[in-house]
């Protein structure tokens, strides 16, 4: 039975992530209205926001420690927040600033925070094999850390995903595959491109447990993830979870979503994981003032991070040539790491 402190922790991650995405949307659209020009405004590049995905990250990361590894796809902010990635430096990275996590080189799809073992990749499903590798390291070193790979439902048709399931299964690796099913691979509905309605069924062919959690339900995610993470930590191998989430802000900012029926977009707003969790917390006699104070704290933290990020300097152009290699000197490594 989940404790009230865990509910509050999840709630705080979720309202932080929601407010973060809402604020980033505002910042991103600055200079892009009425005519949308991807090169205008304070935030460079594409922006894939995760509003409506919050329950997944919070419910899973509630069971993780700093040393556990998490990989995320191109829609990573909510996962990064729940994993404890430095919010200020992450925000500075998204704004393309020198003090960002990657000195402005990576951007919003390529966030790396080694302090909490978080990484992401902008290529579909390609964050999954490295999570298997992190799990392999834990197994080889006889450590009880685990790895979690987050991916979208569109990614479960990708070869790298299938190969990772098999590899993890054959070696009983401590990894949890977390599929966030928002039903849309950009403009392609799941039913058009994927042969299973329930992605967790893909577990069966790889001899691992698979479970689907519906309704953006953070508590149900928490319960499912608890079992999966414990199974991994105890050395009993991988699990595949598919979690229903909803896409509230389009595939990327500027996505006209002309392909999406209005009723579907409306449904995404009706299924609000945050409201659902609030109702659950009221059952636990958490009062409104407590919810309010969590929200205020979360919003203040987001505002502080955005304000800080915008004050940071841009990188100097010549920094573009640094960091291609960690050891740029040529030749043999004398007395190098062993």
């Amino acid at each position: 039975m989940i404790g009230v402190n865990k509910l509050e922790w999840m709630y705080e991650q979720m309202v932080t992530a929601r407010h973060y995405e809402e604020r980033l949307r505002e910042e991103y659209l600055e200079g892009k209205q009425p005519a949308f020009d991807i090169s205008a405004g304070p935030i460079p590049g594409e922006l894939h926001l995760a509003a409506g995905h919050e329950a997944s990250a919070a419910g899973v990361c509630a069971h993780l420690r700093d040393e556990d590894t998490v990989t995320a796809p191109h829609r990573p902010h909510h996962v990064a927040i729940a994993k404890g990635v430095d919010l200020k430096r992450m925000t500075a990275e998204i704004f393309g600033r020198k003090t960002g996590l990657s000195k402005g080189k990576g951007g919003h799809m390529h966030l790396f925070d080694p302090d909490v073992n978080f990484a992401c990749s902008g290529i579909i499903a390609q964050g999954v094999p490295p999570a298997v590798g992190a799990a392999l390291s834990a197994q080889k070193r006889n450590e009880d850390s685990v790895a979690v790979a987050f991916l979208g439902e569109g990614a479960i048709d990708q070869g790298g995903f299938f190969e990772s399931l098999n590899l993890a299964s054959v070696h009983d690796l401590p990894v949890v595959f977390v599929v966030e099913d928002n039903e849309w691979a950009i403009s392609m509905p799941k039913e058009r491109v994927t042969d299973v309605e329930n992605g967790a069924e893909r577990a069966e062919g790889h001899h691992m447990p698979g479970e689907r959690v519906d309704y953006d339900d953070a508590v149900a995610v928490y319960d499912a993830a608890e079992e999966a993470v414990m199974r991994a930590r105890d050395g009993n191998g991988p699990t595949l979870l598919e979690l229903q989430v909803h896409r509230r802000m389009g595939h990327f900012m500027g996505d006209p979503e002309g392909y999406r029926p209005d009723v579907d977009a409306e449904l995404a707003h009706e299924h609000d994981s945050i409201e659902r969790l609030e109702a659950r917390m009221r059952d636990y006699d958490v009062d409104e003032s407590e919810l309010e104070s969590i929200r205020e704290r979360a919003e203040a933290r987001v505002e502080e991070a955005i304000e800080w990020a915008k004050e940071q300097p841009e990188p100097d152009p010549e920094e573009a040539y640094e960091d291609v290699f960690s050891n740029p000197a040529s030749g043999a490594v004398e007395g190098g790491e062993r």
Partner: protein
Amino acid sequence: MADSERELTMSRAMVDAIAHEMRENEEVFYMGEDVADYGGIFDSTQGLLEEFGRDRIMDVPISETGFIGAGVGAAMEGMRPIVELMFADFFGVAMDQIYNNMAKNTYMSGGSVEVPMVLTTAVGGTYNDAAQHSQTLYGTFAHLPGMKVVVPSTAYDAKGLMHNAVRDDDPVVYMFHKRLMGLAWMPAPAGPKTAVPDEDYVIPFGEADVKREGADVTVVTLGLHVHRALDAAETLADEGVDVEVVDLRTLVPLDEETVLESVRKTGRLVVVDEDYRSFGVTGEITALAAENALDDLAAVERVAMPDVPIPYARPLEEEVNPDADAIVDAVRAVAE
């Protein structure tokens, strides 16, 4: 305005050719991610679903190895698939189908097998999409034998090259630059939107186009940088330097004659590429000139993406992606 004088964006011209080929030949079909209802993330299939339906404008799962390989198989059966790889950067998940099957099956079969497939793909940066979504990778595809590689820089060329690509019996990689397509959300420079005839026409592969004639310096380039080179040429004209701009249009086959003719005339060569500097287009064109026109060659400069993954922040991407000023500087250096 007569139909033949209508101006089209590059994406409309490309779609125009595809639609024509699909009307003419039922064996032509198009598959890729988000090509049906969305019309292609970069407008490469706008409006085609309405005319041709889902059987011929196919959305496919995010399974590049599967659907690009399926394109190879359908082409070997004699169909004429056009298969879209959303970003050239994504080739990594499916390269085996591209370079070991699509490109080699004709040769490995001793010529008994044809692979009449077109692989369309979006390339290029300038909009801060960072290291995994901004590459051109021209040199990578052109390096590997067995695929024809096409890079249009204008609407007129985009249409003629697409007609030729679909009709060609060999695999063709058709690389369209995002910044040139004329997207509402990513404004193109002035050059790529051109007059495009209504009727079909082909631009044969292996014919470079001299986009501007000049006597003093040859600039050889392709894609977006054709337009940056033309801008640079305008600036340099004011200084009395007469620049010739050669648009390669196809890398495989390569029009060596047009390049060499220009180099023999000017004696000064600048090669401009949005791909990485080392082991790529700039080195290849420079070697071509050195091997065949060394006596005429007074000076050479290369302008290219330095050998770093493409960074995200604006000042960093602007630093690495060569602009018109970088071309001006290089031309001045060889003109001295």
